[in-house]
Each structure stands twice: as C-alpha cells, then as structure tokens.
C-alpha cells in the first residue's frame, strides 16, 4: 500500500512542477505512475481471481462461462486504465471512444450467456 501511495504522491508533485515548463512531461509522468500502480494492482487481482476460482469448485459452471467472465473483467480493467490516462492528457473524446469499444466488446462476449439461459428456459416447454 505504501509503495503505491508514495508513487502516486511523488508523481503528482513532480508532474505539477514540470507542467509549467514542459507540459507533456506531466503527462508522461502520469502515464508512468499509472503503469507502476497498475502493476501492483495486477498482482492483487491475480490473488482475488484465484480465490474466486476456488469457489468455482462448488458451483459447477461450464468452463466456457467462467472464461467469459474472466475476459470481461480484463477488458473492463484495461479500458478503464486507458480511458483514465487519455482523460488525464486532456483527450476526453478519446477516453470515451475506448470505453465505448470496451462496452460493445463486453456485450458481444456476453451474448452466448443470454442465449444459453434462453435455451435452458426453452427446455422446460
């Protein structure tokens, strides 16, 4: 936790300083700090995911759906990261585009689940 906090604070302060002289370096520092913190987060997420996988033993979900869920998580994660960096650099539109793409991708991935649900319901009829 401390490493992340220190990284963020240091980066913010340096960026403020550099923004006056060379604005683009503020963005680079923001990007670098973001990447470093992302690295830490990925570690933690890995642990959370493996504990969720333990739950998977009890609930016999088809492996396909589990991988869908996993992918969706990854996509959300990346899209938010990219979107936030763009927003920091001042390009809101770009950020919006990235997030839109992510939403559509997730929808496409999620359709098989809905189809399977409807099929199961149909088996009752």
């Amino acid at each position, binding site marked *: 936790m401390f490493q992340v906090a220190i990284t963020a604070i240091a980066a913010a302060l340096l960026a403020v300083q550099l923004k006056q002289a060379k604005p683009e370096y503020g963005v680079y520092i923001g990007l670098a700090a973001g990447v470093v913190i992302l690295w830490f987060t990925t570690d933690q997420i890995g642990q959370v995911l493996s504990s969720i996988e333990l739950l998977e033993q009890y*609930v016999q979900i088809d492996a396909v*759906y589990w991988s869908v869920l996993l992918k969706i*998580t990854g996509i959300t994660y990346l899209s*938010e990261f990219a979107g936030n960096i763009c927003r920091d650099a001042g390009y809101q539109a770009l950020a919006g585009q990235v997030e839109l793409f992510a939403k559509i991708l997730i*929808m496409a991935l*999620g359709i098989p689940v809905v189809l399977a649900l409807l099929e*199961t*319901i149909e088996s009752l009829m």
Partner: protein
Amino acid sequence: MEAGTFLDQFDFTKIEEILNQCGLGDRLSFSGLVGTIVRGNWVELKEMLQSYFGQVFLGDLVYNREILVQAMAAAVFSAVFTTFSSVFRNSQIAENGFLVSYLFLVSLVIASVILSVGIASDVLQTLLTFMRAFIPAFSLALTFTTGSGGALVYDQTIFMICYGVEYGMNLFVIPLVEMNVLLCITNHISKDGLLEKLEGLSESVLNWAMKSMLMAVIGIQMIQNLVVPLLQSRKISLVQKAIGVIPGIGDGVEAVSDIVLGTGMLIQNAMGAGALIVLVLCCAVPLGKLALTALMYQLAAAVIQPVADKRMVETLACAGRAARFLLKMVFVCCVLLFITVALICTAVTGKF
C-alpha cells in the same frame, strides 16, 4: 368361507400391475395386503408400510439437500462477484456475473420443476389406471356379496366425473404451472421486472383454478347428503382441528377434511380398506416428495436472502410455489378418488 379361497376368486393381477407402476410392486402385493387386513394382522401391516416409506424418503432427502447446497453456492458466487466488480465504473461486469450464476440456478430450478411435474402427472396417470382396474372389480364384488344391481349405474356416472376432473387437471393445470415458472424466470433476466404483471396474472389464475376445483369436489350434492349426518361425531372435529395445524397445506386440507373423514367412515369392508391403503400409498410418496421439494425451495430462498441478489431469491421462491401447486393438485385428485370408493360402497350396501 375360508379367507384364502375367497380372495382367490378375485383377479388382482391388474392391480398388482399398477402397484408395480407405482414402484411398490416389489415390496408390496395387493393380495397380500388384503389378506393381512382380512386376517386382522395389524402389526404386520404396520411393518410393511414403515419399511417402504423409510426407503423412499431417505433417497429423496439426500437429493434435495444437494440441490440446496448448490443453490446456495450459486448465490454466494454471485454475491462475491458483484462485490468484486463494484470496483469498476462499468456495471456490465456485475450484470454478466449475475447472468452466469443465474444460468446455473435456472438450470437447477428447471430440472427440479420437470421432475416435480413428472411426479405429479405420473401420479395422475396411476390414479386413473387404478380407477379403471379397481372400480369395476370392486362394484362387482359388492354386487356379488349383497345382491344389489344398482352399483354399476353409480359406477359409470361417478367414474365419468372423476375422469373428467383428472383429465382437466392434466390438460390445464400442469401447463399452467409450467408457464408460471417460465414467466417467473424470464421476468428476472432483466433488472426491471418487465413481465411482472403477467406473472402475477398467471399466479392468480392458478390460485383460482385450485380453489374452484376444490369447491367442485366438495360441493357435489350427493356427497353432502351422505356425509352431513356423520359429522355429528366429536372425534371427527378434533381430528379436523389437528389437521388444520399442518403448515403450508393445512388450510386447504381442513376444508376437505370433513368430507374425507365422513366418507372414510362409509367404507366398511376389507377390500375397500385395502384399496384405500393402496391409494394412500401410491399418492403418499409423490405427495411427500412434492411437499419436500416445496419446503426445500422455501428454505433455500430464506437462507439465501441475506446474501444473494433479490432476483435469485424470487426465482427459488417461485419454484417452491410451483411445487406447492402441484401438491395441492395431486391432493385434490386423491380426495376425489377416495370419495369415489366410499360412494360406491354406500350406493351398493346402502349402509350409513
């Protein structure tokens, strides 16, 4: 006449067939049962019944407990995933997580509903076949012993009434129950209940159908005339109150209990009693299974509620309600048959 040779005169093969259908055949035989009753051998009878019931219900309990555990696991998984995905600003991931675990839950529920419906329609089939085999033989036997010829006429009319009701149940009630469950499940796929009103409508229709069938069975005038004088006895009212205490179906049962208990007193001979025991046995097991299923789903819904999404809880509750409907339906058919047997007894012997 010696009991053995007397019984030999009756052809019980068809009835034994039905018992086999019920799954009772290998452990119970109709002629053996009647013989036991004729001989007045109550201890042996009790043992036969006890061993049979024990075996059947144990298997069912285990199966139901497994389903309960899996439903809980699905709910916990969904809850964990939702918490985890609340981190992200994008809510799609939570929705997808819910859908996946809902898929699992739905397949559980549907498998169980199909099972329950199978049990209920099997029982109806069995009851119908039993009637077809037993009633002609029975009224013939009564005519044989008492020399009255009116039995056959009564036999036909009552036969048709019962047949009609059971046919109606098969045609209308069972599909209605299935549709109710379907609506409930589909309603919960999306976050806003788009089909809520429709689901409510189907439930009201089902409730109304149940009530009217029950009323039709009780209200048959013939039955009223026969039974009213018998209700003076205080013992009956005590048993009625006792039955009314049973949770879940107690209120419905109490309504019919006066008819049932009254007609019970009309059945005067061993063969009728034997038929009744077969009836009870054939129906008791499925009734018990259905009751167990209904109870288990209510339990699952209650246990899951603190942890899970509201939609999952609702789905489980709906599955429990469907099982209860089926239970009520089978129960009404049982009562109908019960009354039929009693009526034939009365019609032939003219006894009260």
